[in-house]
């Protein structure tokens, strides 16, 4: 169902206003926005032009020997100096670009021509084709490329076509592997099944879907491999197993530079710099191409980060300047403050989010909620309502780009808002703790369960390893894990979903916190498992008396477990009542609509009530009105 917000809020790219109906148009426009790619592309174009026009551009014939001007440093006559046979370095450099581009291009084409069909065959057919074929490919990839190159040259000789073939062979395994991966992914996609159900023949489907999906990766891989091909070609020329030495190549020039290092250091720089720039250009371009084609620019909210920090500081200053007397907080909170019994008291909490255009918007608005000792309070809302953000605000774990704009969060009487991370990490685990939605990812996969379970015990309770392990076994048994002692040394993937969540609960409760925050803790579980985990939480609450903040989108969970519940919509808490009242006499229109729309509530005949159209407009209107009132204040 609906997912809770992820740890980091990724901001989508602002639209440039125009809609490109063709994919190509979209790709080009994305690339145009990346300066690095543009520069790289320009350089490549420049190089290609130089290579094409070499006879025109180069001042001398590259093989022309000037025996009177041997090993001369750069001068007006020879702009980059001369080598040991008096040949002009600049001209050799220019002609060298021809070889470089030619060999690299040829190698990439050969690599693709060999690799892609192989990958198609392996991926399509599967079975023995795939098994044996991939063994070959793995082997080829494991061997050093240079080895393959050397072998080919040793057997077949040294000319430009063989060189292309050698380097192409090295790269073929990359293309084969990549193609096969794409085929496998596409084969398993749901729309292949859907198309098959529609009657389309399987081969046609896969071919029709795969080829367009292949173009992108092939081009990207090709671009990146071009860079590698140039490196390999240069290395082979340097080593003397590339092209015959009369043909000017950058690698051969460097070999000469090495030999004459002591007397002619100027020979070292031009070919090396040429190689570096060319390889860099191709790899930057390839990366840019890749980003543009996959459309994935994980634009991390650096912008938001700085804004968030600044705003957070401002809010903190504002909070401390107002005298905050300990004790009861008066306000418009509809919940009853339980005084000494209160574990968590939040008042007018607002969380702001930094937008790409440097503005901010509030994703949680003036939320007030209390949790008393031994009380299970539900926070009910659909996706995007702000419920998880609220939980993170309480934990002090707001994602980057968001911050606590205002409000007070008191845990056992102590103010938590705007506290330093260092202080908060002491509070967490000992006074409050949390379990999250996906149990299989909630634990580190490469550490044993015992290690993670004993972490809070050793950190907060000062236990040594033996004591912690003993206590951990007790905890595991308490949450219903059989064979607890043996299981301590198991890894998370050896547990089923429900069991893993129990372990997570045990870890959260290990240091005896007074508040447990369960953020969609059972949403990813099967029905029967969910019931077990919820019953466990109820049992633990009965035994230890902690307060629980149960965040969920499910009315059923609220009905079964909560003593009180708050309903959240568009960042606001619109209703907060004891659970029986909430279900029997809901006050807010949204709550009523939610209850009506619940299929489990529905009459067995007739249509389901849905929240759409006029009803949605009405609900939104109520919220908008509240927003307007507050802004006016």
């Amino acid at each position, binding site marked *: 169902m609906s997912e809770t917000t992820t740890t980091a809020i990724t901001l989508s790219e602002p639209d440039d206003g125009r809609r490109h109906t063709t994919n190509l148009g979209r790709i080009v426009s994305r690339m145009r926005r990346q300066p690095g790619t543009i520069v790289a592309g320009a350089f490549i174009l420049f190089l290609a032009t130089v290579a094409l026009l070499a006879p025109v551009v180069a001042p001398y014939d590259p093989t022309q020997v000037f025996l009177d001007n041997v090993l001369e440093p750069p001068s007006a006559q020879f702009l980059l100096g001369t080598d040991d046979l008096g040949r002009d370095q600049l001209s050799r450099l220019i002609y060298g670009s021809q070889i470089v581009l030619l060999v690299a291009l040829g190698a990439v084409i050969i690599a693709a021509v060999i690799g892609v069909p192989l990958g198609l065959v392996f991926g399509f057919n599967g079975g023995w084709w795939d098994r044996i074929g991939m063994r070959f490919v793995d082997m080829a990839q494991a061997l050093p490329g240079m080895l393959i190159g050397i072998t080919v040259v040793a057997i077949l000789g040294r000319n430009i076509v063989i060189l292309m073939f050698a380097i192409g062979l090295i790269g073929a395994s990359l293309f084969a592997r990549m193609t096969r991966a794409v085929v496998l992914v596409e084969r398993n996609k749901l729309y292949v099944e859907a198309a098959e159900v529609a009657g389309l023949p399987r081969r046609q489907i896969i071919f029709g879907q795969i080829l367009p999906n292949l173009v992108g990766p092939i081009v990207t891989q090709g671009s990146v491999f071009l860079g590698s091909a140039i490196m390999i070609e240069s290395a082979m020329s340097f080593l003397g197993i590339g092209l015959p030495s009369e043909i000017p190549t950058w690698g051969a020039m460097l070999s000469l530079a090495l030999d004459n290092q002591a007397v002619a250091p100027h020979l070292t720089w031009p070919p090396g710099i040429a190689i570096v720039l060319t*390889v860099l250009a191709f790899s930057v371009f390839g990366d840019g191409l890749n980003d543009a084609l996959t459309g994935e620019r994980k634009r991390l909210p650096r912008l938001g980060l700085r804004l968030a920090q600044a705003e957070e500081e401002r809010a903190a200053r504002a909070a401390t300047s107002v005298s905050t007397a300990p004790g009861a907080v008066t306000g418009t909170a509809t919940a009853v403050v339980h005084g000494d019994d209160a574990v968590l008291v939040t008042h007018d909490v607002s969380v702001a989010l930094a937008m790409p255009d440097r503005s901010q918007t509030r994703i949680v608005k003036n939320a007030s909620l209390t949790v008393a000792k031994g009380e299970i309070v539900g926070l009910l809302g659909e996706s995007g309502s702000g419920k998880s953000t609220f939980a993170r605000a309480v934990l002090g774990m707001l994602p980057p780009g968001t911050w606590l704009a205002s409000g007070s969060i008191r845990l056992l009487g102590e103010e938590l808002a705007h506290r330093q991370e260092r202080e908060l990490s002491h509070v967490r685990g000992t006074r409050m703790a949390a379990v999250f939605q996906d149990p299989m990812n909630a634990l580190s996969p*490469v550490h044993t369960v015992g290690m993670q379970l004993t972490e809070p015990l050793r950190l907060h309770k000062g236990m040594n390893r033996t004591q912690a392990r003993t206590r951990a076994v007790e905890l595991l048994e308490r949450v219903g894990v059989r064979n607890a002692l043996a299981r301590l040394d198991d890894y998370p993937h050896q547990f089923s979903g429900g069991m893993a969540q129990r372990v997570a609960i045990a870890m959260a409760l290990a240091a005896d916190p007074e508040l447990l925050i369960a953020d969609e803790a059972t949403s990813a579980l099967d029905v029967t498992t969910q019931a077990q985990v919820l019953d466990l939480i109820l049992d633990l609450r009965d035994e230890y008396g902690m307060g629980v903040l149960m965040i969920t989108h499910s009315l059923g969970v609220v009905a079964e477990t909560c003593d009180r519940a708050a309903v959240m919509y568009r960042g606001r808490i619109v209703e907060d009542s004891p659970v029986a009242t909430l279900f029997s006499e809901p006050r807010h229109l949204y709550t009523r609509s939610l209850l009506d729309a619940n299929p489990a509530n529905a009459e067995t005949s007739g249509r389901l009530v849905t929240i759409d159209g006029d009803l949605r407009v009405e609900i939104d209107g109520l919220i908008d009105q509240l927003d307007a009132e507050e802004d006016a204040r």
Partner: protein
Amino acid sequence: MLKLILYRLALAVPQLLLLSFLVFTLTYMVPGSPAAAILGVAANPESIARLEQQLGLDRPFFERLIEYYAGLFRGDFGTSFVSGRPVLELFAERLPATVSLIAGGLLVSIVLGLALGIIGGTKPGSFRDRASTAFSSVSMSLPEFWIGIILLLIFAVQLGVFPVVSYVPFAVDPIGWMRGLILPSIALGIGGAALIARQTRTAMAVSMSSRYVDSLTAVGVPRQRVVLRYGLKNALVPVLASTGLTISIMLGASFSVEKVFAFPGIGALMLRSVTGKDFAVVQGGVLLIAIMVILVNLILDVSYGLLNPKSRPS
């Protein structure tokens, strides 16, 4: 654990068989006759036939195949056409130099790469991240032999701090050995460092945004401990998985670094044999190097299994 080793060994056997067979057929792929290629200008039908007989190239396929495998089991990887010495012996002689070089390169790569990756990956999008990523990108475009030449130029030729001819066997002079390894290791290691840095950075960023980071933080584990204890180990998994490839690439790169620093290693031997048409050495050498690579990958696989419990065969 033992099961893991045996399993991987079992996988390696068919690979080795296939490889050795391919290598054997190499001489059959030479256009014309290998003997003709060796003799070059001096080739005429009689001398070719004589050389072929001398080298045993005129015998039937299966006879040579059996002889080949029999030889392999004995440890006979062929005999050099040029020097007449066993290929295995030639390689054993040169192995220490190459191994020293690769070990040095790996050390530089791992230390530098991990550091850069952690610096960048723990704060993705920050300035230090972009700086280290830029550094990696540029480093990957620098040919290792060019770095070597420049280092040699600056530190050996012009400053005289390091010797120009670097290799000193460990047995002869440990200090000299280490000193001689410094420049070549840096030359070889920078490219590898960039590769490792890139992977570490991605792995760190991924592991730091994983759900278990939330779980641990929510229980009060301080951030530094979460990063170093939990995040790093998770990040190492994909990095280690690709170390085999890194070593393989480094082996190839070592050939040119050996040339720059005049290291008497395997690369130099192979190159000499290629230009000198010493097919026996090339053939035997390819097989030997391939075996080495397979062995190294085996060790890495086992370590990977140690690190990542999910990949162990159940």
